[in-house]
């Protein structure tokens, strides 16, 4: 489904973010990418979202080179990938409902679909009672659950979670990980980047370990070795 082929990202001689990275992710797989800060996890995610271009190599999403896509095709790709970030990245002047509705509007969904699906997906993340709250009225865990709801509302093929538990307490961390597991159990591919050992150990899924821009381990069953 996703294939990185000898991807390098070099900003300067002294700043090499990724060096000849190659790996594949199969449909419905749950893959965790671990590594210290600066190991290249976020750069790798940006490559997949076509936010950054590789210096060398190719990134394929279902056999299509994502960096060869035109603008319209790029928007379609992004609608098929749900994203969750450490800093939540919710639209500050929109309510929880409107944040999720915006992702659906961008995907060209009708008003009827939006009014039916948004409350449903908010119920799934246990935020049915916070529908009309603005992000500044929500706790960190609640914000992240809204972000997850936004990521899954268009039923994407892949959910990418970049350090989603980085700003959360252990209780909210556990909740977020459980939701991601549930999403994967329902058939969506999940790519998670984290440096939280507890999260990796609790998942027991495939782990790719990055160090200084290189893949140093690729374990089929969760191991956090650094």
């Amino acid at each position: 489904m996703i294939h990185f082929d000898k991807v390098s990202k070099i900003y300067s001689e002294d700043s090499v973010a990724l060096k000849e990275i190659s790996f594949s992710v199969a449909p419905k797989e749950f893959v965790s990418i671990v590594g210290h800060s600066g190991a290249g996890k976020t750069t790798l995610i940006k490559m997949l979202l076509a936010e950054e271009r590789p210096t060398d190599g190719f990134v394929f999403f279902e056999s299509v080179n994502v960096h060869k896509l035109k603008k319209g095709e790029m928007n379609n790709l992004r609608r098929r990938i749900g994203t969750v970030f450490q800093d939540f990245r919710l639209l500050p002047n929109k309510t929880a409902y409107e944040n999720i509705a915006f992702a659906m509007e961008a995907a060209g969904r009708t008003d009827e679909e939006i009014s039916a699906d948004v409350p449903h997906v908010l119920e799934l993340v246990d935020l049915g009672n916070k529908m009309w709250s603005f992000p500044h009225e929500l706790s960190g865990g609640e914000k992240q659950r809204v972000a997850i709801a936004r990521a899954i509302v268009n039923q994407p093929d892949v959910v990418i979670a970049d350090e989603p538990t980085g700003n959360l307490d252990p209780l909210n961390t556990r909740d977020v990980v459980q939701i991601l597991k549930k999403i994967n159990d329902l058939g969506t591919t999940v790519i998670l980047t984290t440096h939280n050992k507890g999260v990796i150990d609790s998942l027991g899924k495939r782990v790719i370990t990055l160090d200084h821009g290189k893949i140093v381990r690729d374990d089929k069953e969760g191991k956090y070795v650094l």
Partner: protein
Amino acid sequence: MFWVNFKRVIRSGFVSFWRNSFVSLSSVLVMLVTLFVIGSILFTDVVLNYTLDQVKDKVDVNVYFITGANESDILSVKKSIEGLPEVKNVDYISSDESLKEFRDKHQNDQLTLQALDELGTNPLGAVLNVKAKDPTQYEGIAKFLENKSLLSDNGASIIDRVNYYQNKVAIDRLSEIIDSSQTLGLLITIILIIISIIITFNTIRLVIFVSREEISVMRLVGASNLYIRSPFVVSGVMYGLISAIICLIIFYPLTYWLRDISVSFFGGLDLFNYYVGHLGQFFMIIVGSGAILGGISSYLAVRRYLKI
């Protein structure tokens, strides 16, 4: 789908305007200053043109005829002068009227009046008072009159003199001053409008800069550039429209307050009446400028953050 998206974009622009009330208020205030400058430029232009017209109207050329000239010959000259495209109007003053004007003018000068009486005849000829559309055109009219004098009754010239050449220096100087005033006025107008546009553009750029993270999130959920940009443009147009309406309201009492001053200082120009009489034009210019400035500034400012 177009209408659904259109409705969503308009709604989103309005909602964003009200929810970002502090930012919206700041933008409206800055645009208000910009539009006030543009409105003031319009008034300054009116005052300048009115004053220059007044000055232009005071410039004229007199054609003096010899005392024995036939009235029919004079009227024939008058008709041919009126036919010139650069001539605004020609007034005929007969020799009797000239004499009457002379007497009125010197009514306190008994010596002159006595000398006039002793002559027994009217020593003054008829006069044509010529006003050109533009002071620079008097030279052409004077040259035309020089040739015209050959067409007199019996071969002799019936035109005694044309006072253009006596007043040439003053007329030329005045023409230069009028031209310079108009050029300077245009230059100042252009500079002020450019400054206003730059201030507005930078203010809106700052507003969009605050929203740059928001724009990047919209991109990441797959929103098209048009769908991201449009609500910002709607908000920008709203800043312009609201500022324009406030500006038009402010001009109402302001011109009323200035009306007496303008009438006495600019020789009859009533700014309030002018404003009320031309409200439609002011509305179109100020509201149009506000909406276009706000919309285009937002459009350009967002563009920068759409390049991911």
